[in-house]
């Protein structure tokens, strides 16, 4: 009897997410009609634009890569029922660390890349360790600390780049370029898709196996599902809280490095790039499932790319997509959205089941 309810539950979540997406898109279209002289063309560009050329579709993949990293980082911590608003700063510091190693160390090809990635993971892990340990030892809300630390990390990163690694000959506030030995090569012309795609695939597989196939992932999930139960069963919940934040930080930092080594090749951000916040959206859409994160990131990247194309080709600005995004997240996270529909399904299934005589009732 349990199998059916579980499948229903799962299908319901999938339908609900799809309906939320459709409603949000519909609302986006209505708004477009108000602001645009050519709503059909604008929306057509938005929805189908990314499919019209290899380069544009490449843009989707490029944009999805950092979102997968931050989506994974946030999902790991969310699965432990901890907040993580710190992926932004961790991603940022990972990029800073990778760029410094990329500029400073003279190392041969592949090794240089690996050292950059390792440095970025270490930097991200350290950034995540702080809110983790503050929570575990002092009970400080990781929501507040991870949020506020973002600004600390951002200013620290900008200071280090501006005062120690700034390329004074460049026309803008950017760092020296990193050495070519540290590049993740772009291998698919005319797109900018780079070997970081292998790193991202490895990260997804790693996080999936970690969460569902290791004792540490098990301890993390049990802590997230019921922390009292985990403590009662003898799981060290304080250490779970710390290592979930450390691991999340490392993955976010890795994402920052991949973005630097694969796309920009020098530090260019003088504002927060926002990948950490987007990671939260991705994790919510994916319901913290690492495989779902890939789909969520691709979807968000597709919308972003479509919005860019729409802005370039028509009179509607790219910010339209943030409206759609907002409505979508609101509907996906709203517990009551379609709850009545779900309840009717449950009632129908449950009463129908009751009519079939079954031995389980006697339990």
């Amino acid at each position, binding site marked *: 009897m*349990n199998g059916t309810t579980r499948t229903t539950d799962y299908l319901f979540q999938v339908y609900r997410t799809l309906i939320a997406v459709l409603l949000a898109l519909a609302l986006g279209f209505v708004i477009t009609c108000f602001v645009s002289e050519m709503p059909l063309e604008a929306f057509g560009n938005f929805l189908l634009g990314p499919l019209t050329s290899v380069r544009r579709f490449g843009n989707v993949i490029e944009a999805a890569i950092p979102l997968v990293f931050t989506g994974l980082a946030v999902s790991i911590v969310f699965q432990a029922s901890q907040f993580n608003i710190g992926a932004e700063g961790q991603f940022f510091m990972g990029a800073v660390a990778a760029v410094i190693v990329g500029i400073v160390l003279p190392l041969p090809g592949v090794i240089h890349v690996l050292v950059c990635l390792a440095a970025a993971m270490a930097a991200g892990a350290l950034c995540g360790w702080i809110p983790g340990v503050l929570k575990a030892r002092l009970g400080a809300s990781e929501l507040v600390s991870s949020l506020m630390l973002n600004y600390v990390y951002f200013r620290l990163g900008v200071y280090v780049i501006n005062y120690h690694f700034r390329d004074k000959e460049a026309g803008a506030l950017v760092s020296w370029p990193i050495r070519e030995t540290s590049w993740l090569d772009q291998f698919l012309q005319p797109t900018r898709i780079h070997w970081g795609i292998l790193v991202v695939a490895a990260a997804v597989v790693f996080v999936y196996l970690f969460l569902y196939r290791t004792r540490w992932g*098990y301890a993390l999930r049990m802590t997230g*599902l019921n922390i009292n139960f985990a403590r009662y069963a003898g799981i060290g919940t304080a250490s779970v809280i710390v290592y979930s934040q450390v691991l999340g930080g490392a993955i976010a930092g890795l994402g920052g490095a991949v973005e630097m080594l694969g796309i920009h090749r020098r530090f260019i951000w003088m504002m927060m790039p926002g990948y950490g916040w987007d990671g939260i959206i991705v994790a919510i859409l994916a319901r913290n499932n690492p495989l779902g994160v890939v789909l969520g990131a691709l979807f968000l990247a597709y919308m972003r790319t479509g919005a860019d194309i729409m802005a370039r080709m028509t009179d509607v600005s790219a910010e339209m997509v943030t409206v759609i995004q907002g409505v979508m997240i609101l509907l996906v996270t709203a517990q009551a959205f379609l709850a009545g529909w779900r309840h009717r399904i449950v009632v129908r299934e*449950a009463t129908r089941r*009751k009519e079939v005589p079954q031995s389980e009732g006697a339990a």
Partner: protein
Amino acid sequence: MDALLEMKRITKVYPNGVVANESVDFSVARGEIHALVGENGAGKTTLMKVLFGLERADEGEVFYKGEKVDITSPSVAISHGIGMVHQHFMLVPSLTVAENVVLGLEPRRGIFLDVKAAVRRTEELAEEYNLPVNAAARVEDIPVGMRQKVEILKALLRGAELLVLDEPTAVLTPQETVELFAALRNLRERGHTIIFISHKLREVKEISDRVTVMRNGRVVGVVRTAEATEADISRMMVGREVVFRVEKPPATPGRPVMRVEDLRLVADSGKEVLKGVSFTVRTGEILGVAGVEGNGQAELVEILTGLRQPSGGRVLVDGEDVTGADPGTIRRRGVSHIPEDRMTYGAAAQATIRENLIADRCWSKRFNPRVLMSLKAVAEHGEALVREYDIRTRSSATPVKMLSGGNIQKVVVARELSADPKVIVANQPNRGIDVGATEFIHRKLIEKRSSGVGILLVSADLNEVMTLSDRLLVLYGGEVVALFPDASEVTEEELGLYMLGVKRMTPEEMAGAEAAAAGGRAGPSDAEARSPAVGGGAR
């Protein structure tokens, strides 16, 4: 007969798919005491929650005084004259009795509460209905029996004509139960109608005029109490003949395996919750801890299992000091724990049965042959325990939240008993589960005892604690007030007097009981081990 309340074809399905009520017809006559009985999970409480507006029925109608009513919230129910006394009291502990009674209907003087008027009103009401309470005392300081009267007064002040009492005797001593029944008869004489939810048939037989029996979310029968025997009713409840007996071979206690010495706990509020509790659990015996809930049992269990730090005293497991150790360490020393609240501590509801079954042993080599966990080993372990502990489910991959209360408890018990413990700390192991599961768990506990495990059984259910225990102690106000070397020689009434704090044994009497239990061969070494601890203790 003149029906005051009629509920017709009530169906209620919970979001997890559990059909709690299925087309239930329920009718109560004016001026009767109507018992609503059934096993835990039969749907009694749900039906009453629908009546009181705490749950919305998916189908069905409610008629009150002949008119169709739509009870959307408790305040609507109250305005119709329906009152409910919940199993867990809804009182503000830091306010006085009078303040609780008038809460929301406060007599005012200017913008302030008129305290005198509130006290006067409460006392008048208490006298009128013969429900004596101490109107000026704070609720946190009064005994459970009086809190229940406060709840009843609260409902009466709000004009309740129909009063629903959800398992009112579960928290009472035998003496308090007698008082409650007198008050209920008095209420009936004054024209009130009472719905009495219970699964204690002796009480139902004693107090009620008619009985409605529920099973599995349906009504299986309505009888006049005078025309049915306890056996008739229990057969309707369970759907088969029940034998309320557990085979229990005599105990063969061995060495002391858990020793508690002068355990003290001061709560954050400054209240002394445990005032120097000492006792010893031996291998191969069940030591029962009786007492009205809230006399330190919960805290005692939390300290013994590492969930709470004591303020003083020692806990020794097999001679090793584990005072203040974390739950993991205490488990590794051989202590299993069946917690009072299975949903808070005992299980992760969304996780699968097999995941729940490895929670305390997830680091074991058995499940982690290399870096990755062996899902096969986890599944085999889960399926084996599901079979051995008769957990009713299709597969161990089912989430725990899909199971009935009794089966969830079996998951907890399966994990805890299969951990190969030296000591089992069981707190209310049969709370809120059906007769079948209760029997099963009792049998398993006795099996463990007979194989040499020491068991500490904490229970507010007198019947349970008396039938299962070999020795028995009573906890009152954070102290051990009685210790009986043979639980089978104690009567309920006698136990009740100790539970109420009316009687208490002297330390000498209890020491005598302890010595009697220690017997010949365990005696000398026991005394030896004990003397230094007393000398160096926190005196």
